[in-house]
């Protein structure tokens, strides 16, 4: 018997939306900004973040940037446009094909992981450039499931100034997106990084999000031991696999290691809040 996380992970969507919108407003204003840019793919994560930001700051202060590659599914761009239109934001379109193709002309044998990572980092680079132009902060779109599993590109889609949804599992992202009234295709299509044709998160991970979320919730939030999860009906292989992914990707959730030589090393014994003086 395998349990999914839908009942376990049910959130008070109104409360969560107010916390996250307040977070965006507070942390953006506190550092002297009033606008944000978001990479909007048309998937549920970035659509939700765009909606939260739009509710928090007003649609005229949110710049969704749509950055397709030539193999991206045309429906993704259509979904992104629909979300943007529904929210009343004005999207920017930056096709990343020319620069990606120019780069890989020099490395024609690159596999799709390298290509995918490069695209994610190209989009990051564009977002930070657009943020400079708009005098805006980059808002991140990585959810808790992918952060814990390490299913993201370091300094690519994982890069941002603020991440409002990094403490929400994918199941909870869907629930909140539904509560905020995002368009049906965004809520029902299979999650995909859309880095190559036909890519699907759940195929690539070899996991269903509902199951992964339940296991992660028990392990991380409830601090249950693996034996307890097995007793709850999860297979030992699954519990082991997820635990291993979390450990293996720990480096992605931490700043780079600094070799300690002085008495006071950044982030080890030099510890200040980020909101220092704010």
């Amino acid at each position, binding site marked *: 018997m395998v349990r999914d996380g839908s009942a376990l*992970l*049910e*959130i*008070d969507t109104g*409360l*969560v939306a107010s*916390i996250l919108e*307040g*977070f965006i407003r*507070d*942390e953006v204003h*506190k550092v002297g900004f009033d606008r944000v840019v978001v990479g909007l793919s048309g998937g549920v994560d970035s659509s939700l973040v765009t909606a939260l930001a739009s509710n928090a700051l007003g649609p005229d202060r949110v710049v969704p940037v749509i950055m397709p590659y030539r193999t991206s599914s045309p429906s993704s761009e259509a979904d992104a446009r629909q979300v943007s239109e529904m929210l009343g934001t004005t999207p920017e379109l930056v096709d990343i094909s020319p620069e990606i193709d120019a780069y890989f002309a020099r490395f024609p044998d690159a596999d799709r992981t390298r290509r995918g990572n490069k695209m994610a980092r190209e989009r990051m680079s564009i977002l930070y450039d657009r943020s400079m132009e708009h005098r805006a902060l980059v808002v991140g779109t990585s959810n808790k499931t992918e952060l814990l599993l390490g299913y993201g590109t370091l300094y690519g889609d994982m890069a941002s100034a*603020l991440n409002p949804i990094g403490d929400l599992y994918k199941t909870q992202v869907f629930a909140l997106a539904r509560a905020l009234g995002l368009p049906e295709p965004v809520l029902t299509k299979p999650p995909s990084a859309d880095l190559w044709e036909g890519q699907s998160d759940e195929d690539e991970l070899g996991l269903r999000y509902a199951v992964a979320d339940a296991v992660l919730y028990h392990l991380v939030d409830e601090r249950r031991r693996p034996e307890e999860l097995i007793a709850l009906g999860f297979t030992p292989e699954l519990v082991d696999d997820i635990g291993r992914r979390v450990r293996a990707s720990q480096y992605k959730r931490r700043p780079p290691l600094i070799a300690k030589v002085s008495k006071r090393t950044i982030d080890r014994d*030099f*510890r*200040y*809040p*980020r*909101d*220092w*003086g*704010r």
Partner: protein
Amino acid sequence: MVLERQRTRLIDTQEQPERQSEPTGAVVIAMAQIAPRLGDVATNVARHVGILVEAAANGAGLVVFPELSLTGYFLKDLVPETALRLDSDEIATLCAACVEIDALVGCVIESDDSRFYNAALYISGGAVRHIHRKVYLPTYGLFDEQRYLATGDRFETLELPLLSRNAVRPWHGGVLICEDMWHPSAPSLLARQSVDVFLCPSASPVRGVLRGAALGTAQSYDVMTRTYAQLFTAFLVYCNRVGYEDGVKFWGGSRIIGPDGAPLDEPAGSDEALIYQRVERSALRRARIETPLLRDERHDVNDAETDRIRRERGSTS
């Protein structure tokens, strides 16, 4: 900055020329539910002074500020940099603002031997009258207080000077800072020294948003504040801060509970607010006649049992 006034319970000042002289012994207590600027003591001091001036003009006898209201909460290595000595200019400025009104203010106090305490200062009549140094410093989960701060070791009551003025009997107060409340021996020790009002400044963050268990921490404080007020038949003023620090939201919900365990009003929301509440001294008498728990408390049994337990199990149990 002007605070949004959520619920003004104030009688207008013409009706109340003598603040504390009516038969019910009523006083007005204000809760300054603010979002301090993290690590910016100068800005926060100025803010406090502004609030004190406003609250005094509105007839309040006491303003309770949240935990670490002069510094913000997640200070980390800012603790020594934001710490104040009792003879500092900042404290002098606050004392000067507390001539017509009392204040309970949160700050980091540095001792002569360079220990840093999470403290609440009761300021009245232009001077610091009482210091409570937080005894229970949470160091688990998202909390890390014992890494940076020294622990206090006393729960002492104080006479509340301005509240006492013109009152038939003096008001006695006792301070519990946030995590102190999670240890029921703390209010019990205060109650044994006679407490009419628990003053509870707090910096309680939001955790837990699952459906049905919405805002787990707020529910815990709901239970604790009502329970302590009722069991010790005393008023309880809970002033929690608001705002965000490094992505962590503080949920506010400041309120005053009466000595029968009933809140005097709905808890505040999670925006900044200066909340005034009229508190009647006579409610204490009525509650203690109806439910004479203080009269019936068996301190002798408590002491004898404490001795026995220490004998049998050692002092750490």
